[in-house]
């Protein structure tokens, strides 16, 4: 019995030293042994093969059921004025360019039915559907059984992901987080100085690099010359808590967030020891002015790290960018927009907080193939003379959406949980009335 324990213990030591030696240490220096690259190449080849097999299988099978990958309806992109204009084109009586006709209701009727069949907002809070299956059970929507070989590859994939990769990744994550807590606490013991700042950056960077390895994250950074500088505000679209790891792999940021209890609280407190972050008590969050003041003070201090903020306020599924809350844009200072786009083929990074809690979400991340994403640093933007915060926020949002290839929506991400405000309906009524009685002077 003792022998068994001894053997298990020594196996564990060997395992740990392999992990530390081959993965953790190179990661800390930003180097890589190239194993991940080889892994990715093999993975891409296998997925391509699987896709071809599935497509061939679908053609061969006399199945009448084809998939509709991109939704069920095609919408017209015409504006309200154009569509109603077309409706009225053949109206028998002459219209004096601003009258009601019985057929106007058809426009609203059709729009209403379209949204009942498929609406633009609800679909943003569930995972994106893939055009071709990526051999993960969780993304299997209506992909039918094709062949023995595909099933075998899928089975092999399950084994590799759950029994080989997942334990490795969990080990790395644990190492990374413990290093963060220990390292920052140690650095926090030093007196404030340039050395302390440098060490703090080092600890943060190495920890996040280890965590990134723990997710098999393959990140491509673009336009590094636009990287956020000290005293600025970094703004990005939000898909999951992993966004922080992705961004912090390439630079140091001051985090903003609510104070948590438990493990998160421990991490937050230790991070605070080595460099200033902005953690709010729950009660403070209600007071917008207090929040704005703290952020403004931080930004004004040019020696402090740039703040990282996600203005959407909630996780969206990375196909679109929703309304940016204006609070971050009222603080002043330079805004450094960043666009993050994940490649869903290798793993779905979206955190559906209604469906999964944090732990099951992280486990899902660690049992995906990999997390592949592109990060674009956009040129810094500042608020112009006479521009109001909402307009500025929309400007930044459009820039991010355009760079990331995401749909630019003006809906509020908070609609995940709340009802639509009456103002939206009034907007529609206003638009319609301007086609009837001419522009409304308000």
């Amino acid at each position, binding site marked *: 019995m003792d022998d068994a324990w001894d053997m298990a213990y020594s196996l564990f030591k060997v395992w740990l030293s392999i992990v530390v030696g081959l993965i953790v240490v190179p990661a800390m220096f930003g180097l890589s042994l190239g194993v991940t690259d080889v892994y990715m190449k093999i993975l891409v080849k296998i997925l391509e093969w699987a896709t071809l097999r599935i497509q061939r299988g679908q053609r061969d099978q006399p*199945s*009448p*059921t*084809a*998939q*509709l990958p991109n939704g*069920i*309806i*095609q919408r*017209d992109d015409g504006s309200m004025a154009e*569509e109603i204009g*077309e*409706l*009225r084109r*053949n*109206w*028998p*009586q002459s219209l004096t360019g601003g009258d*009601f*006709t*019985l*057929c*106007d*209701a*058809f*426009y*609203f*009727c*059709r*729009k*209403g*039915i379209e*949204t*009942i*069949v*498929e*609406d633009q*907002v*609800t679909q943003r809070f569930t995972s994106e559907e893939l055009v071709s299956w990526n051999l993960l*059970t969780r993304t299997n*929507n*209506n*992909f*039918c*059984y094709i062949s023995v070989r595909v099933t075998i590859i899928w089975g092999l994939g399950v084994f590799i992901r759950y029994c080989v990769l997942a334990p490795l990744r969990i080990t790395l994550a644990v190492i990374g987080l413990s290093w963060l807590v220990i390292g920052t606490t140690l650095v926090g013991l030093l007196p404030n100085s340039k050395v302390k700042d440098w060490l703090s950056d080092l600890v943060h960077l190495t920890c996040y690099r280890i965590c990134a390895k723990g997710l098999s994250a393959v990140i491509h950074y673009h336009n590094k010359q636009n990287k956020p500088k000290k005293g600025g505000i970094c703004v990005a679209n939000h898909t999951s808590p992993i966004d922080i790891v992705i961004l912090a792999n390439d630079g140091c940021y001051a985090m903003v967030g609510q104070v948590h209890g438990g493990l998160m609280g421990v991490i937050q407190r230790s991070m605070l020891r080595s460099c200033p972050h902005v953690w709010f008590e729950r009660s403070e969050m209600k007071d917008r002015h207090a929040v704005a003041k703290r952020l403004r003070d931080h930004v004004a201090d040019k020696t402090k790290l740039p703040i990282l903020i996600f203005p959407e306020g909630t996780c969206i599924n990375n196909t679109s960018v929703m309304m940016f809350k204006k609070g971050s844009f009222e603080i002043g200072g330079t805004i450094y927009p960043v666009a993050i786009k994940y490649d869903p083929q290798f793993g779905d990074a979206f955190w559906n907080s209604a469906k999964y809690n944090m732990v099951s979400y992280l486990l899902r991340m660690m049992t995906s193939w990999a997390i592949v994403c592109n990060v674009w640093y956009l040129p810094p933007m500042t608020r112009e003379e006479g521009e109001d915060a909402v307009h500025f926020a929309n400007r930044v949002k459009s820039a991010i959406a355009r760079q990331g290839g995401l749909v630019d929506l003006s*809906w509020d991400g908070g609609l995940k949980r709340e*009802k*639509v405000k009456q103002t*939206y*309906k*009034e*907007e*529609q*009524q*206003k638009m*319609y*009335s301007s086609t*009837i*009685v001419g522009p*409304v002077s308000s």
Partner: protein
Amino acid sequence: MGSTASTLSKIPDVETLMQETGFTPAHMVRLYDRFKALDKERKGHLCPQDFGAIKELAENPIGDRIVGAFFSQGQETLDFHSFVRILAHFRPVDKDRPRDPNVPEPINSRSNKLKFAFQLYDQDKDGKISRAELLQVLRAMLEMQVTEEQLESIADRTIQEADLDRDEAISFDEFRKSLEKVNIDHKMSIRFLR
């Protein structure tokens, strides 16, 4: 591994439904998924509040009326069959349909589309759009943007143009006549992807 065939088998009487409405199996699967997604509490049927969860419908000025059209017989629940039957009104018209007087008109015929639109106006279902009913629709579409007098004059003028038998109301035939030249087939159809 799931398949469309297995989802189809979950829908009762799916063959008759497809024949009646003209939807393809792929459409039926999508619509069934949508029905289940809207039915958040897994009741097996929809109620008006489930439609309230659709954000873009809440901003539509006549959103409540459209939802009302689904629950037209005064019921409080909507099963999948009725859901699909109403949506079938918006399938594009089959231009090559033979005009056989013995075969009942398909749900998405021009006439049935017009009937659907008519009931959006005619809430008390007496076969006529009265002045009061017209005012209600106008108020829904315009609310605060125009004065009450403007609303009334618009309503009067509309009735005057369409009302041929001078009974101060618009019957279905008068409705149909005034919309003769409007391209209903196109404007009251949704492009379902094949």
